[in-house]
């Protein structure tokens, strides 16, 4: 950011709660079905139809609110937000206004600035306040780019999909903080299983309120709202663009006007959608078709008790309990299933560092190249743990282990089974190794001579020959010791 300036950013995140059915009717929330297939009188806004709140929505909202440190109000009220739009079938959205579902939350999220190449600098934890999170319904979708160019179409499959709108305090000072916060929210919501976090499909959408002020100024500048940012990258770029635009505008003697702007990714610009004068008067009032939502304190405690360990807490625990690096712990806790998998490997192997190495390098590489998720891994966590144990107790060498692992990836078999079938058990019988060593030395007199003349680097050559002769099964440590003894003893 330009010297002498500070940005102030607030974020509104709309997270789709992943219930099977819609918020006020029994229609499916499935994405990508035939247009208007998942509709009924309620979500079509037909005359006389009435909303009935889906209980599961309240459960999911409560889990999310608690995970974000929000206080759940014992009574909250649904309100109507009135505006006309073709994809808003009732002419109002059922949302919450002056008594939202939850308030007064905060998260401690890891954040860092990035260099020009986008590499993270120094990670630190920052406190971001969350003003409120409230429950509301989604609208449908207007479609303009199909069929007759003179016509627009409306798809109401999404109408009535449950959303949690999470409104932050204006606590962000850079686009990367916003990026890291939304990433954190996304991980957290995915972690507790209430939102699939798919930004492309619109399961997580973001609006950013951006203003700038001179460093040290107390008053906030006039803000512009950038709407519908549907990827983390767009969010970050749009905010940066907007900060630069506002600073340039003010420095040129202009004034920022309060308005709603849209991000155009192709042009890498924000442009004005509507000014404050054109802003809607939403005429909020309490929704008379729904009684106040009452939530018992005991129920909230039940939900709290049922929450899984959250990613941030787990990350810290992984560092402390398993001795992992910050980065490794970050990756391993990025996805709940991955963290669960890792812990299962630790349990089966008794070696947390080896488990981290195998999961992070070998397993993730294999999964990535196969284009599959940890949940689709053929290698079971107990099997990976067992493999680590086989190395530890010298049944097989680390090198053989990699081959065994490749077989596990391909077949899903247990490592013991593969080792047995292929006769890969490590030779630890010293007599057998000595026999091979003697044969190898006898077969390579020139190298022996060179070694004895001081070219001790040839030890590697001898080790390789011995391992080869043993079919890779000889215990490398034993091979090393016996070879050295033979090479040097006979040299004297």
């Amino acid at each position: 950011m330009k010297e002498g300036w500070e940005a102030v950013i607030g974020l509104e995140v709309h997270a789709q709660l992943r219930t099977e059915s819609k918020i006020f009717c029994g229609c499916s929330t499935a994405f990508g079905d035939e247009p208007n297939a998942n509709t009924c009188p309620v979500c079509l806004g037909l005359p006389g139809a009435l909303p009935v709140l889906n209980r599961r929505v309240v459960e999911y909202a409560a889990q999310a609110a608690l995970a974000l440190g929000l206080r759940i109000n014992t009574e909250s009220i649904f309100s109507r937000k009135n505006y006309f739009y073709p994809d808003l079938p009732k002419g109002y959205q059922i949302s919450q206004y002056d008594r939202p579902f939850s308030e007064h939350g905060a998260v401690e999220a890891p954040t860092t600035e990035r260099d020009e190449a986008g590499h993270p600098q120094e990670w630190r934890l920052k406190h971001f306040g969350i003003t409120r999170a409230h429950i509301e319904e989604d609208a449908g979708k207007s479609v303009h780019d199909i069929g007759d160019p003179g016509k627009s179409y409306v798809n109401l499959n999404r109408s009535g999909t449950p959303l949690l709108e999470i409104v932050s305090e204006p606590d962000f000072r850079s686009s990367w903080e916003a990026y890291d916060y939304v990433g954190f929210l996304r991980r957290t919501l995915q972690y507790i299983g209430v939102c699939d976090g798919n930004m492309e499909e619109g399961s997580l959408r973001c609006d950013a309120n951006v203003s700038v002020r001179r460093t040290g100024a107390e008053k906030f500048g006039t803000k512009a709202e950038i709407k519908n940012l549907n990827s983390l990258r767009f969010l970050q770029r749009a905010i940066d663009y907007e900060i630069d635009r506002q600073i340039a505008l003010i420095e040129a003697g202009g004034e920022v006007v309060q308005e709603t702007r849209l991000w155009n990714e192709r042009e890498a610009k924000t442009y004005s959608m509507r000014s404050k004068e054109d802003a809607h008067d939403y005429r909020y009032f309490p929704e008379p078709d729904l009684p106040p939502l009452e939530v018992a304190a005991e129920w909230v405690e039940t939900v709290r008790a049922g929450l899984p360990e959250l990613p941030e807490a787990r990350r810290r625990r992984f560092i402390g309990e398993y001795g992992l690096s910050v980065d490794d712990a970050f990756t391993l806790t990025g996805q709940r299933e991955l963290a669960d998998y890792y812990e299962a490997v630790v349990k089966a192997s008794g070696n947390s560092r080896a488990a981290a190495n195998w999961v992070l390098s070998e397993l993730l590489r294999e999964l990535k190249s196969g284009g599959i998720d940890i949940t689709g891994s053929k290698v079971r966590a107990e099997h990976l743990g067992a493999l680590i144990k086989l190395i530890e107790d010298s049944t097989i060498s680390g090198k053989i282990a990699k081959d065994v692992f490749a077989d596990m990836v391909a077949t899903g078999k247990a490592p013991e089974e593969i080792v047995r079938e292929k006769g890969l058990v490590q030779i630890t019988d010293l007599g057998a190794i000595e026999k091979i060593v003697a044969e190898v030395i006898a077969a390579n007199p020139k190298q022996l001579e060179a070694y004895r003349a001081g070219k001790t680097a040839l030890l590697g050559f001898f080790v390789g020959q011995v391992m080869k002769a043993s079919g890779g099964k000889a215990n490398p440590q034993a091979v090393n010791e016996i070879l050295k003894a033979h090479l040097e003893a006979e040299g004297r």
Partner: protein
Amino acid sequence: MTISLTVDEIHRLYEKGDATPSEIVRAALDRIEESQSSLNAYLTVSRESALKRAETLDSGIRDAVRVLPLAGIPVAIKDNMCTEGVRTTCGSRILGNYIPPYTATAVKQLEAAGAIIVGKTNLDEFAMGSSTENSAYGPVRNPVNTDYVPGGSSGGSAVAVAAGHVPISLGSDTGGSIRQPASYCGIVGLKPTYGRVSRYGLVAFASSLDQIGPFARNVRDAARALSAISGRDVHDSTSAPVSAPDYLAALTGDVKGLRVGVPAECFGEGLDAEVKERVEAGIARLRERGAEVVDVSLPHSRYVVSVYYIIATAEASSNLARFDGVRYGYRTQQARTLSDMYRRTRDEGFGAEVKRRIMLGTFVLSSGYYDAYYEKAQRVRAMLVRDFDSAFEKCDVIATPTAPTPAFKLGEKSDDPLAMYLNDIYTVTINLAGLPGVSVPCGETRAGLPVGLQLIGSHFDEARLLNAACALE
């Protein structure tokens, strides 16, 4: 065959084999068709489907009357309740071609009780009015004297019963739309407690005030109909989880010891002298039968019309936003842009009174005015509820006139919306408080116009309310 009969009378004919549902229904349909040119009470007459359903009941009707409280009874439904496959217009041009894909819960319940729907009745557009002159399909006339309005907004349903077409019809009551036309037409009209009857499928006017209820020629039939349509509906979150008693069984006619509250506020300025006389005579009759008459006070009564027209129009402005020409109903033919389409569709589709109320409601909710109007109105509404709470500490039911005047002539108040709104002064109160109320005939004026007495009960106390009403018959 005349069918100005009650349910009991029709059932007796069925039991004795003196009539079949087909005959009764055909007679009803014939009378309806004869009356249409003079009364205009119906927007749709379901001749074929009604006769078809009647025929299926013909052979088993003797048994059916024993198990189904409304077996073979022709009924009429206000045209703001959805009926699957049958046009539902709300008396509006904007829904002139609208055919719902589902049926309102209350209508389904009525059919489940054995009733046969013969038609959908005319109404003030979207139930907004007190005379049924605001229908896009022409005004309804009072069968007592066709120079007069039948009251509104459920004018068509009131006339269906008053003219003897059917013993029972359904109306909806947001500020008096069942009770006032009942009073003007000389029949019984009941607005149940808010939440007693499901609103699912009732096209909303003001959601926090709307309630479906029956018209009938006597209290027994009203009680029968209420039993059929009451109860919790999973499709309506505001329907109450309070079980409905057998209202018919509650009608003993015994009012000894019943405390009848009379609020002085409802007998003062603006009340027609003849109406006052008839209503007081009605209260005296209750006293003669052993009821105890006590004075009660409703100190916030003078604000009710203002409060009502703020809350009702606010909710209406939002409820009617869905009629935008996008998905169903009328759409203008000549729009070039989206906002033009909205504007013209709604301008051409809605009538003057509906537009007036949408504008009023939009205004009271707009930013900068919300606190002064809507918010304040809600506070006064809460005070009104307390007024009733304290009144009901001293009495069991409250008696008032249903309307300040008898029926007026067509066109008499059309140009004076304020005078029209003031007609609702005794009825809107109980919608605001969510209480049940019934209008019972209590004589007529010297000009032969019916007068109605309104009895108000406490929440979910319809049994006692109907019993008191029964004692007035």
